[in-house]
């Protein structure tokens, strides 16, 4: 019985692969503009979206990002893309972050409609406090413009997408993506060299070609 299941699964994969060959609507490189909103929270790797479905979502930290993406020529079911992303999020009354980064991704697309992707990122992030800070100078505290702190922001994520061209003849794609990222160096209480954050994004990609 178990063997039959494996064989069936293998057969399905082969069929999908066969259908999937040349499933991209164009073999030419594609350019797109992406817009997404996301919810951000701190969490260890066990704090996946599933964990929070079970434990009620922990945060209302919101953010948004815009991106420009360039996808290369497909090879079979896959294609590589390169993305530049600029985003912002506000974490409680603690900090706000602007980030800009390069994000290469590998996408798998089936039936010209359903896609899945893995994405990594190397970004620069700049955090600022959300309220006034005071600097100790000449024996007293003074209000001073806080120029914030720079951070390296590596990320890794995965997501799924739905191409609307096949369904509605609209040159756009909607996606949902979970990413884990860190801000380093960071010190919420002096001892954390890096934060571990999650971000769940919902976005749209508009094809410009």
């Amino acid at each position, binding site marked *: 019985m178990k063997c039959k299941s494996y064989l069936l699964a293998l057969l399905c994969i082969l069929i999908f692969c066969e259908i999937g060959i040349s499933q991209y609507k164009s073999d030419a490189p594609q350019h797109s503009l992406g817009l997404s909103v996301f919810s951000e*929270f*701190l*969490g*260890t790797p066990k*704090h996946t979206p599933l964990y929070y479905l079970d434990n009620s979502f*922990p*945060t209302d*930290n919101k953010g948004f990002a815009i991106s*420009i993406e360039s996808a290369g020529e497909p090879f079979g079911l896959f294609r590589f893309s390169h993305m*530049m992303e*600029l985003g*912002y999020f*506000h*974490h*409680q*009354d*603690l900090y*706000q972050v*602007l980030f*800009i980064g390069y994000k290469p991704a590998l996408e798998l697309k089936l039936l010209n409609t359903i896609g899945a992707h893995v994405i990594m990122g190397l970004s620069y992030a*700049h955090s*600022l*406090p*959300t*309220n*006034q*800070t*005071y*600097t*100790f100078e000449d*024996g007293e*505290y003074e*209000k*001073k*413009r*806080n*120029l*914030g*702190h720079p951070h390296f922001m590596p990320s890794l994520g995965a997501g799924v997408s739905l191409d609307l061209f096949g369904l509605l003849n609209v040159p756009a794609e909607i996606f949902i993506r979970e990413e884990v990222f860190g801000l380093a160096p960071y*010190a*919420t*209480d*002096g001892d954390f060299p890096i934060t571990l954050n999650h971000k769940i994004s919902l976005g749209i990609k508009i094809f410009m070609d």
Partner: protein
Amino acid sequence: MMNYTKFILSTLSFFVMYGCIKEEIIFTQEDYACELTLQNTHPDSISFEHYLSEKTSEGIPGISMLIANNEGVWSGAAGFADISNNINMQSCSVNRIGSITKTFTAVSILQLAEEGLLGLEDNISNYLDTAIILNIHNASTATIKQLLNHTSGIPDFTDNIDYWLDTYNDYDKLWTAEQELEYAYGLEPEFNFESGTQLQYSNTNFVMLGLIVEMVSGVSGERYYQNHIFNTLGMTQTYFNQTDKDIPSLVKGYHDEFGDGVIRDYTNNPFAVNSMAGGIASNTEDLFTFVKAIMTPGILLNQNSIDLMLESSTVPLADPSEFDYGTDNRVKSIAGLGLGVFKLNTDYGIAIGHNGGFNGRRARMWFFPESETSIIFMYNGTRFKEIGRKMFRNEILELVFN
């Protein structure tokens, strides 16, 4: 490409220069009004005042202190209660006292024991929900007394990183005792030992004791403290389970988040405000009243309860490094833990009391029975570890006793 670069650089510059910052609320000195009840009678007042000024010139935002011994009483303050509004700290300024709350909870338990409503040797499983008992390590074997002197072996829920992550994810959240205890569910203690065999400080012990006080007395912790301690002693500037919005006179708490000398206001963090392990806000004068009362039979406790409270546990420390005060200091070592109080060996005799604090605030409440000296101080800045350590371990003791 050039246009993109310009756009990105402009966006970054705009963000750095004008990133949204919350507008500060304007307060006046009247908003921080508090009542001064003590007359300064101490002959060394000038040197005490000078010392506090010295500390604020080193970077402590604001500090209030009370010293009382057989020469007299002095209370004073220096620095700011609220930097942005230029409000001075006063000796009666209200600050959060963090874990000094545990001493109030210990007194509450001892009062309930005096009334015969509970026994210190009772197993806590007689009082707490089954879910708590089944899910927390050692909860099924620990007694009330073992919670009071931290020999229960029950893990500290603040050792669970999920607690801190969730705190930072929901910064304004008011945690209930039950919610805090859930972070101890299934948590393996850092030092695993049977109840009563070793000593390891754990905040969970006093969160549980708070639930026991409420369960046995039939009233909320807030009501219990008010009726049996605050009102009894006339502590009119002491609060429990009140956020910064509920206590207008609460001094701001400042924290140096990155350790770079830049501080920010952490006042709105309601950390532990409704926990009987850390939720009281008070001032030096009210704490002085409390210290005198717990050392005097017939006010809050009878002589037998006071003796029990001050009796040191005899079991070894699970982690001696936690109480390593160094060899060159006036505070030498831990002499033991009583019920809700620490006992320290110092060059000036045994000191009895408790420390407290969290982001933005620190408080110290100590009594030296041999010389009948009380030293109580609070300051509203954190990440000043070296200054803070020197203050209690050496400087203030030398100032008072030499």
